[in-house]
């Protein structure tokens, strides 16, 4: 994969961006990301991250970005920095202070943000990413299996990692904006 980064950087890419909260990037290890970031750095690129978690584990997620920036010696950008979970609030100043501290320690880390309080993504983002292992067909097979479906239901209601569904306060905070099938419109 580092060879792919080399090629794409030579073709004009600006850097490497990872969507760690979504499958399949959620299965990656930090060491793999450092290797890709090093490849981007060799060409003067940047590492940008949709972090693994923007909720209760945001500190660990930020620490991972900092580690990649440090070990790959690369500028790093936190994509659409947010604090998810409508029930909690006013934590952004603390997170900004954490980024400031990393910068004061010498890391070239910045963040961007969109200026509204809702997140546009897909409905399946409500489902833990392990259920997508093997591809989209595997997710559908798991949802048709009563035992796996029950397990997924339990994990959505009592999440161990950030859950879009719970962060939105449940079904009242999840708005359907587009369906593929005409019959579902």
């Amino acid at each position, binding site marked *: 994969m580092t060879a792919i980064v080399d090629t794409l950087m030579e073709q004009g890419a*600006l*850097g490497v961006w990872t969507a760690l909260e979504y499958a399949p990037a959620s299965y990656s290890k930090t060491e793999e990301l450092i290797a890709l970031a090093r490849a981007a750095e060799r060409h*003067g690129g*940047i590492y940008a991250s949709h972090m693994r978690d923007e909720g209760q584990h945001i500190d660990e997620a930020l620490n991972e970005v900092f580690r990649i920036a440090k070990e790959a010696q690369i500028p790093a*950008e936190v994509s659409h920095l*947010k*604090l*998810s979970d*409508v029930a909690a*609030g*006013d*934590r*952004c100043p603390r997170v*900004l202070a954490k980024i400031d501290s990393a*910068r004061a320690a010498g890391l070239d880390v*910045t*963040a961007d*943000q969109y*200026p*509204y*309080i*809702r*997140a*546009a*993504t*897909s*409905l*399946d*983002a*409500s*489902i833990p990413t392990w259920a997508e292992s093997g591809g*989209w*067909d595997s*997710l*559908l097979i798991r*949802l*048709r299996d009563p035992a796996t479906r029950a397990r*997924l*239901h339990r994990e*959505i*209601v009592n999440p161990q990692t950030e859950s*879009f*569904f719970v*962060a*939105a306060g*449940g*079904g*009242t*905070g*999840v*708005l*359907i*904006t*587009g*369906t*593929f*099938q005409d*019959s*579902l*419109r």
Partner: protein
Amino acid sequence: MQGKTVAQIAAMHHRDTVETVFDIVLAEGGHRTDAVYAIMNEPDVQAGNEAVVDGREHRFRRRGARRSARHTVRASPRLRIVPADPRPLCTRSEAVPLEFAVRKMTSLAAQRVNLSDRGS
């Protein structure tokens, strides 16, 4: 279903909300459903709006952060794909002047990826 919340759709079918999510994902038959999640809150977004890195922008922080009562931005699936509009930054945070909002959304972002001749 478009324009309805998962809770509203679940109520129409007398169904649990999580089961409704599963039902919709299965009914799409391998295609994704777009959804907008209300997961953030205003004070956090405003704090981020007003955050600055360094340099001359820093003075805007000291102007204070009076909370604006005007929150005119509505969630829309198009928000992700239309060109960024700096005005919401100013609407939400009176501490952010329009010219700084334009800089944040154009040249500051461009500089970050070593594009020195873009934005204003």
